């Protein structure tokens, strides 16, 4: 027996390698070998899976005496790490259990421990996989059917708990439901009465659930051509169908069937009582979802038929594709290869299924599971591997998404346009543009023309203006972006009469001759402040300047920022260099929020045709703390920016600003924690008498206190930012709704769609942050006296976690 353990692990064939030996392999670590043997069973092999499993089971049986814990641990990690091979491992466990009853028992015990741990720590995905594995263990005669059923009963009992969020009971019900395709038949045969009772409890729960959150998560507002169902509703419909088909399905691999003779003689274990840990405020449960559907069987031209949306096969295949993406998301090439070697690829229209699942993830609300670029690059990889078929499916999908764009959620339209621009940039911008030319005659605010325009804008970022002009047909002229350029008003005709022109030109030559910031400041000193001189000027009144000293100097800001951006207009880096060199002056000029808004306004004057430049400049200004996040938000909501308000870049800036703010808070939080840890560690050392003078700097209580103050200030700033954004949203939307009511016109204009769904987007994209302020928002802003259409968005959002 001892020789067997020295088998090299790189043999393809486990069954035979168990009897092979190679010289010089004595040193191979046996534990590593075991791991390799176990993790690789079920991969492509020259001999049948059955014989490999049989062989491996005998090898493991022999090693159990010495390596039991190790083997158990490896098997348990396979449960959560290699779920695509679940049936292989349940069969293996079944075979081991048949050979060695105790070992089966210990494995189940260990798995139960892991399940309890996952539930306690909130690793719900792992917990789901373990539940499913336990269910499949019933099929392999490892676990008594009745005891699994009582675990299910315990899970379903969560639905009876009082004062818990629905997401909690949802998850427990989902965990049971998602295991049913594997084990339902067995339960039905062995415990029919109890099983039916369980099913009717689930049915009851499903019919009573609140579904306020659904509208917030839908990709399309329309149910045509495919209903967009809540995930539990959909899965339940699929399971009811499965039941109608006498619990038989065609998708699940069941290698244990071949071992029925061996397995049915094995003794089974009874699961211990598993009671879900009780709810506490800290636990966050998985968010609900809406199932995304874009294809049905009529969309697939030929070959295998696409399973219907309520057939369990659809769910199982989607799950499996989802799994492959999850395992390989960091490596697009491996991921593409893994997807295309899908086990039952000849029985399903694989390309359509892959494309649908990938778009469902890309469009997932609130946020996609992985980076958006992952989906884009993976689709390209898939096109490369299947140039004869994948591009067609993708083109068909694009065409369908475009056709259905009118009812598409704004967030999804944005992701769709980003993806499409990226995809085109990898395919020489070739597309049958002429098919879309009707959009050129539409109201440019409607989704179709807006989408095309934004695609071209994004595509231009990935190439250049001239290329866009050459790419699309002439009829698209109205949608082609303006050529990006900088505007410098002080050099234009008629500039002579403007108050700042002279100083602007002095400034140019001063900066060109490399003046110091101080010298530049001296030049600016000569400029009069229009706010104190011309109180009557209405432009400045708008900004709410009271009598007394003006809080900022618009002319100085205007002249200096115009000149600076003009001189740095060659590139991003030139602009950055300009900002860096004159950082101090910029900070001085824009020391109030009004000043900062004026600065941003001036930037817009210079770069309004270059969206990407504005995006990076605002980012830079925030990073260098020349402007504050709240100033950016107020600027974007200001009346000057109203014509830009539905353009996507405005929202790119808005979200980037929010993200920047939260990063800053996170960093300060981290700093405080680190400093506290250091201090604690130092104190402990001191107490132990190990104080070392040469140690790194120990923060004092004083320093920590100051850090905490800074953190608190940043947290307040963050809260204020959200309040400003929501308040401005409410103002602008209430205004619109009131106007429409006054003029008795339909409020549901294209503008309204863009704006209300942007409000929704703020909630969703930053849901983790916004949830912290939910009570403040409820009592301060989203009160019952605001318009229902606005309030509804807030309520849908709250329902996400309730």
């Amino acid at each position, binding site marked *: 027996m001892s020789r067997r353990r020295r088998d090299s692990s790189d043999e393809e064939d486990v069954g035979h390698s168990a009897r092979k030996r190679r010289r010089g392999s004595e040193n191979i670590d046996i534990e590593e070998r075991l791991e390799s043997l176990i993790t690789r069973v079920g991969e492509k092999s020259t001999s049948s899976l059955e014989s490999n499993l049989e062989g491996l089971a005998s090898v493991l049986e022999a090693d159990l005496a010495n390596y039991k814990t190790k083997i158990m641990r490896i098997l348990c990690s396979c449960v959560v790490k290699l779920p695509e091979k679940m049936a292989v491992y349940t069969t293996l466990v079944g075979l081991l259990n048949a050979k060695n009853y105790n070992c089966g028992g210990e494995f189940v015990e260990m798995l139960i421990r892991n399940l309890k741990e996952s539930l306690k720590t909130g690793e719900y995905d792992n917990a789901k996989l373990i539940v499913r594995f336990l269910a499949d263990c019933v099929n392999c005669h490892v676990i008594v059917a009745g005891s699994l059923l009582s675990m299910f009963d315990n899970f379903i009992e969560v639905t009876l708990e009082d004062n818990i969020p629905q997401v909690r009971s949802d998850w427990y019900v989902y965990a049971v439901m998602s295991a049913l395709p594997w084990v339902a038949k067995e339960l039905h045969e062995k415990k029919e009465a109890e099983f039916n009772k369980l099913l009717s409890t689930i049915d009851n729960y499903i019919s009573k659930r609140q579904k306020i959150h659904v509208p917030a998560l839908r990709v399309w507002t329309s149910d045509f051509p495919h209903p967009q169902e809540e995930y539990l509703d959909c899965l339940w419909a699929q399971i009811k169908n499965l039941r109608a088909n006498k619990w038989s399905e065609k998708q699940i691999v069941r290698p244990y069937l071949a071992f029925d003779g061996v397995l049915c003689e094995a003794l089974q274990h009874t699961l211990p009582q598993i009671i879900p840990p009780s709810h506490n405020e800290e636990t966050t449960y998985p968010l609900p979802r809406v199932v995304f559907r874009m294809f049905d069987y009529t969309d697939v031209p030929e070959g295998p038929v696409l399973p219907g949306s309520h057939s369990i096969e659809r769910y199982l295949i989607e799950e499996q594709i989802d799994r492959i993406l999850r395992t390989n998301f960091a490596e697009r090439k491996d991921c593409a290869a893994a997807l295309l070697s899908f086990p039952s690829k000849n029985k399903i229209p694989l390309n359509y299924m892959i494309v649908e699942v990938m778009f469902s993830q890309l469009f997932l609300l609130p946020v996609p599971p992985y980076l958006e670029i992952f989906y884009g690059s993976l689709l390209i990889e898939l096109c490369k591997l299947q*140039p*004869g078929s994948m591009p*067609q499916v993708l083109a068909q999908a694009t065409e369908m998404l475009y056709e259905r764009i009118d009812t598409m959620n704004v967030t999804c339209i944005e992701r769709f346009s980003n993806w499409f621009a990226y995809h085109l940039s990898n395919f020489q911008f070739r597309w049958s543009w002429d098919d879309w030319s009707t959009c050129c005659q539409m109201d440019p605010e409607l989704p179709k023309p807006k989408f095309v325009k934004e695609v071209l804008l994004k595509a231009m970022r990935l190439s*250049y203006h001239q290329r866009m002009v050459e790419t699309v047909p002439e009829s698209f002229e109205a949608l082609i972006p303006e050529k990006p350029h900088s505007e410098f008003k002080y050099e234009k005709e008629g500039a002579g009469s403007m108050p700042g022109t002279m100083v602007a030109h002095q400034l140019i030559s001063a900066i060109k001759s490399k003046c110091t910031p101080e010298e530049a400041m001296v030049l600016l000193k000569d400029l009069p402040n229009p706010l104190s001189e011309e109180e009557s000027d209405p432009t400045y009144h708008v900004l709410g300047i009271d009598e007394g000293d003006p809080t900022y100097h618009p002319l100085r800001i205007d002249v200096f920022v115009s000149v600076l951006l003009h*001189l740095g207009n060659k590139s991003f880096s030139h602009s950055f260099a300009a900002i860096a060199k004159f950082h101090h002056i910029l900070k001085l000029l824009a020391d109030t929020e009004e000043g900062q808004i004026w600065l941003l306004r001036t930037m817009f004057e210079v770069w309004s045709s270059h969206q990407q430049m504005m995006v990076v400049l605002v980012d830079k200004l925030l990073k260098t703390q020349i402007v504050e996040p709240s100033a950016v938000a107020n600027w974007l909501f200001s009346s000057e920016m109203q014509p830009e308000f539905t353009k996507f870049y405005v929202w790119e800036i808005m979200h980037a600003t929010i993200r920047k703010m939260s990063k800053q808070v996170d960093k300060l939080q981290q700093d405080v924690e680190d400093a506290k840890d250091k201090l604690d560690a130092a104190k402990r050392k001191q107490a132990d008498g190990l104080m070392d003078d040469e140690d790194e700097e120990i923060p004092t209580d004083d320093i920590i206190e100051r850090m905490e103050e800074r953190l608190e200030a940043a947290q307040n700033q963050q809260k204020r930012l959200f309040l400003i954004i929501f308040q401005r949203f409410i103002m602008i939307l209430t205004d619109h709704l009131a106007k429409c009511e006054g003029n008795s016109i339909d409020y549901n204009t294209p503008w309204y769609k863009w704006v209300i769904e942007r409000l929704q987007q703020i909630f969703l994209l930053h849901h983790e942050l916004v949830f912290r302020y939910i009570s403040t928002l409820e009592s301060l802003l989203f009160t019952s006296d605001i318009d229902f259409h606005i309030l509804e968005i807030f309520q849908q959002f709250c329902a996400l976690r309730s």
Partner: protein
Amino acid sequence: MVYVNFPQNLTEEELILKQKYATLKKKKKALQAIRTAKPERVQAEAAPAKRPAAESAEDAKEQAKKLLKSGSIKIKDPEKTPTAVGFQPFSAAHAEEEEKDGNKTSQRPRMRGLYDSFVSGGYDREREERREERAQQERRDRDYDLPKKGNTIYVNGLGITEEILRKAFSNIGTILNINMERDKHVGFVSFERMESADTAIAEVNGAMVEGIQLKVTMARRQPSFDQNNDQSTKSWSSIAASNSQKSSYKDKREIVSYDAEDIF
């Protein structure tokens, strides 16, 4: 243990034999892989070509039926049609000849003229129709051997360069990509449209470009595309299939130059 226990110590000899067996097994597998891979590829290429062809044949039949009904065509002895070929010794010989020499199909029109002058009578039109059909069938059959549709051509010529190829083919159609194997004097040109590849073969094969005689044929290994698709996805397919990242797109922008002065 239920299993047969092999003696656990192998002799030197046994070990060597085993190794040999393993390598042989590997080679066999590799061979099998090559063998099975090839026909798959050909099939894949031929499959899409087959469909439209079959359709057109059916169409032709339909059209012929319509014409018959309308009376513009008359088949003199419908009873004999199925055996007509068998009765005609000449045509049988011809068909055989054609089967042997596939190249002649391209010279069909001229041959028909010749044939017309030799044979007169009621059957020849019909016979010719059958022959035409056979030739078509034959052409179709040969399609299985070499890809007859594709957007990539193979060009061979002593000392060819990418520039020469670009010059030679850019006026035929939009070039997506050119791949060179300079040491073998071989290049592969991918066009946006398959028709361009056909034109290129018809026009440039055998021609002299920059003093180099070019041999142009369809590239052997290239992916097949569904030809019924629209322009955009067809080019997505071709681009996806080409290994090269560079595009043949000509950047028409003017170079923007700045003064070297660095003010910041």
